């Protein structure tokens, strides 16, 4: 093995084992500690690139230095897509519940029922997820938008229609449901 090749193998190992991209400066220093001229670094890197020509990985220069990366043409085949469905935040879920039960209702209605102001982010989330949609405007000064639930809301919650939503008095008056609701509330309330 000639000197260039044996040096290029050391540099290859160094870049491979490094936690971060190895800066050109560090590589130059390394080459010097191995007793070689620092100008040899160019040919050394070229030789490594050549060695990895038909490989799944390649030596690339990134912002901070040199690094091995998976070739872009094979990366898609290796990428595993993990689905992690989101949960709605508490305020979004409460807002959605109010709209479901009190629709059509305005932003002011929602704020009145929740007793806190409704942030635009919450409303935007619900709109983006297609759970709510505008249902005209209320004929009062300012003509605020009236919100209601969408068809996607029904399918998301597995409801055939809005009538399938348990009625409020059912939730609150039925002693069993009330007890259960109470239990659920206790579990979640203190978090």
């Amino acid at each position: 093995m000639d000197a260039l090749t044996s040096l290029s193998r050391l540099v290859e190992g160094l870049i491979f084992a490094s936690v971060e991209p190895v800066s050109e400066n560090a590589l130059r220093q390394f080459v010097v500690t191995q007793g070689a001229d620092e100008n040899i670094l160019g040919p050394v890197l070229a030789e490594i690139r050549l060695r990895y020509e038909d490989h799944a990985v390649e030596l690339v220069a990134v912002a901070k230095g040199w690094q091995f990366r998976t070739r872009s043409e094979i990366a898609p085949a290796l990428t595993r897509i993990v689905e992690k469905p989101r949960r709605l935040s508490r305020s979004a879920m409460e807002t959605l519940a109010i709209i479901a039960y009190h629709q059509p209702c305005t932003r002011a209605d929602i704020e009145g029922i929740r007793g806190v102001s409704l942030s635009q982010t919450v409303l935007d989330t619900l709109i983006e997820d297609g759970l709510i949609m505008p249902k005209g405007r209320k004929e009062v000064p300012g003509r605020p938008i009236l919100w209601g639930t969408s068809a996607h809301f029904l399918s998301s919650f597995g409801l055939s229609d809005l009538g399938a939503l348990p009625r409020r008095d059912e939730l609150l008056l039925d002693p069993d449901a009330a007890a259960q609701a109470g239990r659920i509330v206790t579990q979640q309330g203190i978090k």
Partner: protein
Amino acid sequence: MGEGGSVFLAGETQETVPHLSLTGFEGPLDLLLDLARAQKVDLAQISILQLVEQYLAFVEGARQIRLELAADWLVMAAWLTWLKSRLLLPAENEADGEAEEAAGLLQGRLLELEAIRGLSLWLDNRPRLGEHVFARGCGEDMTQIDRSGLRVDMVGLITAYLAMTRRKGRKRFYAPPRPRYWTVTEAVSALQRLLNASEIAGWQKLTSLLPAQESTAPRARAAALASALVAGLEMAKSGAVELKQDGVFAEIMLRAPQKEEE
């Protein structure tokens, strides 16, 4: 570990044992294995008797220097002395079998330790990860997380609604105490009561209309006076009362309307 670690015998004090050191021996078994190896034969064929004698001589030598030799060295010495005596007995003796068994046991332990030491060296000679060989330093995460989906259910929706209703039920809003001032309506009825009273005649001061408890706080008094004035003006408009003021900032006077016919 290495209880006998610091026992040295210098050449001058003990001519028969030129240089003796227990340093590096981790216990009697360690030393025994070394002595057995020194016989330079397969461990399966070592002479136990020779081994015993070497050990006893070694420990005896060490004891002349350091009397407080650790107990396990002496326990082993005692046991080996017993073994030696049994091994030296004539072959036809009954105890023969017992000694052979004990010797076999010792040999087994030495073989075991030898194997362990072999494995220990084998492991030691292997390239260790992070010391001699290195894995990929910065991995690439090939997993992509898709968070576009939404996980919702009815229980969550109902729970959220109930939780909110209950929370709101419990919630107390801070409402600043609203100051109660003498209102115009009250002033009107007070004025009417005054006019209906027959003994009242002639000009009366408007201020006499004010309720006694309103006269203390300046703000309440001003509000009450304003109410009284508005009430007076309202009633003057319908002719139920007459008002006059003799000058700027002078007292406002009122009286029941005088009937022209009289």
